[in-house]
């Protein structure tokens, strides 16, 4: 399974959780991976275990920082084939108590962060006439109480996926998204804390809510991202694939 040999991938939020699993999986398939995260340390920890990988510290909420990373990746590798923007935060609160800051942080990290990364890498992909963009939506795009910021951002990602697929298809670029269900990461561990539940209790409830009766792992999501980045998905574009153990 070295189907991505010679490919170069940029993964934001690659320092931990789903992003880190995506970095590992893409590297396993042969890609050189640029691991971008807020702080250098977690990015270096992930990149350090992978051949040809590099670590880049940047805030995806700042377009100049993202553009600078993309310039450095292009200088090093000469191309960018795959973009997977996984960076983002959750800031839940009932709508009556949601602060401007919580709204902005979520919309900025997920939506603006994905848009800025897409805008930065597409000139190279267009020039190559090859590109694979895999965005991260969520089953929360269907609606999620006490997280109107997050539900809005993830539904926005679905719209971004379809709009970009239409626009970039004729340029040889496919654009798809995965919509994960409940995955064991720090994001969901913090959710357990917020609700005053133990992790076991929280995870078990989530598992019971799925047809396959288990929660997901970052690797479950990464495997689907790798498919969408591969030649096997060459005719798939504009799709949001649910990776949630449930219809």
């Amino acid at each position, binding site marked *: 399974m070295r189907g991505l040999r010679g490919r170069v991938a940029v993964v934001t939020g690659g320092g931990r959780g789903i992003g880190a699993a995506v970095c590992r999986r893409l590297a396993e398939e042969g890609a050189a991976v640029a691991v971008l995260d807020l702080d250098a340390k977690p990015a270096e920890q992930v990149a350090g275990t992978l051949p040809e990988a590099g670590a880049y510290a940047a805030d995806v909420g700042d377009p100049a920082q993202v553009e600078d990373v993309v310039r450095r990746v292009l200088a090093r590798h000469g191309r960018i084939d795959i973009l997977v923007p996984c960076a983002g935060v959750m800031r839940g609160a009932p709508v009556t108590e949601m602060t401007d800051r919580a709204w902005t942080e979520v919309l900025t990290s997920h939506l603006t962060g994905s848009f800025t990364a897409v805008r930065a890498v597409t000139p190279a992909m267009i020039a190559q006439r090859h590109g694979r963009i895999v965005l991260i939506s969520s089953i929360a795009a269907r609606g999620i109480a006490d997280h109107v910021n997050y539900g809005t951002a993830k539904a926005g990602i679905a719209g971004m996926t379809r709009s970009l697929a239409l626009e970039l298809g004729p340029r040889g670029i496919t654009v798809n998204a995965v919509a994960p269900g409940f995955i064991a990461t720090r994001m969901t561990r913090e959710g357990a804390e917020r609700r005053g539940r133990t992790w076991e209790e929280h995870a078990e409830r989530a598992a019971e809510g799925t*047809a396959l009766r288990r929660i997901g792992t970052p690797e479950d999501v990464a495997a689907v991202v790798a498919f969408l980045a591969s030649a096997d998905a060459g005719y798939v574009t504009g799709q949001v694939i649910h990776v949630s*153990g449930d*219809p």
Partner: protein
Amino acid sequence: MTEFRGAVAVVTGAGSGIGHGVATALAARGARVVAVDLDPPAEPGIHTVTADVTSADDVRRVFAAADDLGGPDLLVNAAGIAVASPLLEHTEDDWDRVLAVNLKGSFLCLREAARTMTARRKGCVVNVSSIVSIIASPTPEIAYDASKGGVSQLTRSAAAELGPHGVRVNAVAPGPVPTALYGTPTGAVPGNIPLGRLGTVEDIVAPILFLCSSAAAWITGHVLVVDGGRVLR
């Protein structure tokens, strides 16, 4: 290329087009394939069964053969027919035949497969729906479109019911792919496909194999559209 080594795979409609592509690709990756069609051509290394998927007796015979090999691990429901004619010219017989092959046939095979799969607490089914379960077909084929709408919902409902028993059920929804069913493409590539080309059998086979694989272990009840972006237009 050994992902499916030892797996027993039942593939319907395996005599032609997408089903044929799936059967040969699974066999090449180590699966023991039971290839089902009305009149399946002999293929080296592939176990063929002549059967009509609209007949419950035939379908039982197919799965008895799969059980003899150790039980079905995979089922791909690719048998299908289409009748293209305006609604006012669609006969009752057209409607019955199309619904029988595409929808009832998928149900009968799913039910027989599920007997063994739920008992063994493992298994994976991939149905072949179509983008005309989402958008109206550009040329009228009302029974076909309705049958594919049924196949997509069969997929979701079966996934919800069989998931707790360890069985995944998904579908692909292909766009236009030149095969015997589709006919010979005429004229220029439709301008309404963002990727700028018609699909190929390989384009559809690879996502079907993905859904059958461990990479899709946490995907169930999903109808994966494979159409070069056609439904976006």
